[in-house]
């Protein structure tokens, strides 16, 4: 049984893009949440 290496790589690269985008959004949001926390204090 053969499996497609190209498809695996495509899914891997696609998921890496999703991962990087998610991490970037989190990094962007952390500043806002830090500010909110400071204000709450």
């Amino acid at each position, binding site marked *: 049984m*053969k*499996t497609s290496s190209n498809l695996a790589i495509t899914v891997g690269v696609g*998921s890496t893009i999703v991962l990087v985008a998610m*991490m*970037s959004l989190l*990094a962007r*949001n952390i500043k806002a949440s830090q500010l909110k926390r400071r204000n709450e204090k």
Partner: protein
Amino acid sequence: MIIFWKNRIKKGSLHDLVVHLIPAILAVSLFEIIAIEVYLNTPLQESKIKFFVWRSAQAVGGFILGYLSDKFCRKKILIITQVLGLLILPLILWQNFAVFPLFLIGFFFNPSPVARAALIDNFPRESKAKLIAITYVAQFIPWCFYLNVKGFTSYEVIIAALIILAINVTMSYLFFEDRKDKKSNHQKERSQNVVHMKRRKRALYTLCALFPGQLVFFISDTFFENLTSNAGLFSALGIGSLIGVVIGIFYRKIPHLSLLTFCFGIGVLLSVVPLITSYLVPDLNIDLPYQLMLFSNLGGFYLPFVFDVVLSATSASYRGTACGIIDLIIALSSIIGVSIVILFNPTETQILSMTIILFLISTVIQKKGEKHA
């Protein structure tokens, strides 16, 4: 699209990425690359003892490191586990994946529970399910490149892992921060209960339901390995889990505990239909690999929600331990799953019957847990 993302990512983001995310995420991916190399160099048919030693060490090591990160300092434990990885990896190469270095690497290089707990500490306003899903995406991505990794020698892969690990250790030491470590009232916080009493039961039921659910996954893994035609099928299983967890990433949090019951219930349905079909139409062959890949998809999807339920019930001071316990359950289910296939050598019909029973047990336990939601 590019402009959209440029606008979304502010100037300070790169610093925040390095300080809060990359060292933890990279450690999880590296751990999995080494796991692939161990998997390739210790085929189950040749070295059952190596598999059991490696997984048992992982089960205990993950739990202990998670606990230590709660008790002392997440940053320190994250650095120590990576430094130990740096020291043990050359030993693995030198001793050609012998049992003792495998035990050492399994026990001491286990950053996943610490990394998960650190991420939740650092992003208290983000959903736990999303953060855990992110760590699982990082964990499953290397399996997409399994066939490519297979093309390199162990020496090349381990040396590359060592270099990246050395960079990550430096980055963790210089930049990584954990919000819990910085809290001055840490001592005071430790006197809190380990679990929130109100949510204790549902977390307990969820952990109990996870065990048979994961058992299905590992029974299918081992069954794949025993197939003579498995040429690289494992990467397809990893991709199945990855697709599941990528879908899970878009949920803010678990909508309701019944989502987990539904997932286990779908597992039952996915197993019942081919079993009935095989009796109704005996000439039709069951395509079990195809069937079992659907389970990996399901497993990837529900895993972050399991963490969400358990971590929501756990005190902030014991997140590392909670992540360690879940990893312990997953590792134990892999040990038992592999043992079942090795001892009983089941047929395809028996595998499907087992998956029906196991998913049914998970569904019933999870349904009982819903009463405490």
